[in-house]
């Protein structure tokens, strides 16, 4: 069981609708959400603010669904931000769809014990390993995950062959000890 500050905030929100806990969570995560919305310049500042509000309200509503045994608080928050950003993007581009990103997006939670052990360990080690990543590999991961670019778009932007981008992603993941073989 994780008992870090942010999972404790989520627990308090779920159990007691604790606004002070919500405010602490807001002060930490809202600036990250705004940066996430603005990276890759996908959104204007006002849409970025809209995203922050939406994600924070979702966190308030869904806090009871957070299970600290299955994911860390920051991974859970990131997953909500990612889904909301995709939905906002589709709304702004007038997608006519009943499917939300949450319906089809990757879960941060997994039910399998084996998976769990691994993801917990990798979550703890990941930041340390990330510091040792060469900057060219790190930059590509940031473009893919934070700026929401496809491998092809990253290749275009950095003027690199697509194969080079793909192999840097693969190399980076190996260094981060992500089990990519299936």
């Amino acid at each position, binding site marked *: 069981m994780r008992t870090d500050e942010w999972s404790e905030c989520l627990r308090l929100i779920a159990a007691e609708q604790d606004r002070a806990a919500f405010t602490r969570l*807001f002060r930490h995560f809202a600036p990250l959400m705004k940066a996430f919305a603005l990276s890759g310049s996908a959104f204007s500042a006002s849409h970025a603010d809209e995203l922050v509000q939406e994600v924070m309200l979702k966190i308030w509503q869904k806090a009871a669904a957070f299970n600290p045994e299955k994911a860390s608080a920051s991974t859970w928050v990131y997953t909500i931000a990612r889904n909301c*950003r995709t939905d906002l993007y589709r709304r702004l581009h007038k997608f006519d769809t009943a499917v939300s990103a949450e319906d*089809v997006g990757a879960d941060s939670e997994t039910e*399998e014990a084996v*998976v769990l052990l691994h993801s917990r360990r990798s979550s703890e080690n990941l930041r340390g390993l990330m510091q040792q990543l060469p900057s060219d590999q790190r930059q590509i*991961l940031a473009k*893919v995950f934070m700026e929401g670019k*496809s491998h092809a778009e990253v290749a275009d932007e950095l003027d690199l062959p697509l194969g080079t981008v793909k192999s840097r992603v693969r190399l980076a993941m190996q260094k981060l000890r992500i089990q990519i073989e299936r």
Partner: protein
Amino acid sequence: MKAMPEFHPDLDLVTEYAAGTLPLAQSACVSMHVSLCVQCRHLAAQLSVLGAALFEELDPAPVGDAQLDAVLARLDEEAPLKYGTSARLAGAVPAILQRLMSGDLSDLSWQAIGRTLRISYLKTGDPDHELALYHIRAGGRIPEHGHRGSEMTLVLAGGFSDADGSYDRGDFLLRRPGDVHAPTALQSEDCICVAVLDAPLQFTGWKFRWMNPFLKLRTG
């Protein structure tokens, strides 16, 4: 061209899936595979952890107190939801497919292509991709066809084989532009697949070419 059979989406696809950048219909197809495949579920979860680590290292962008007050003022309208577990679990028919079908397999409207194949187009809202269910009769063979674009296929029931390999429930494959194949369903049972296309199929044999105009891409 003969390719090694693949049974899972490759690393690039799972990465784009976990980063939330795959087009809607493709994302739906990958998520159905993920709901049936523990290894890919494992990989996607690890990549979400990676995404979260990158997220936490962003340079924070200032958010004023007015924003916080605006959110606090709205908390009362947004009553917390009461639930304990994640809603999406691996099941017989992936939950997202149930939603897209809004009913049962038998309620769908099917278009017959010859005697062995029926196709039902599902609406996802993706403007660039078609998502359809293919029902191939047991032992039935889909006439040889080519792909001008990419085609994702996920086996939901039964199985099929082509020159490259054989595929069972839960298996995923990606056909790339230029690939030509002629899948045959297993003899023992009907095969149902989900297919996501970004360009229509093209039948190559003279006997079936007349059908090509009927295979316009149905996106949306």
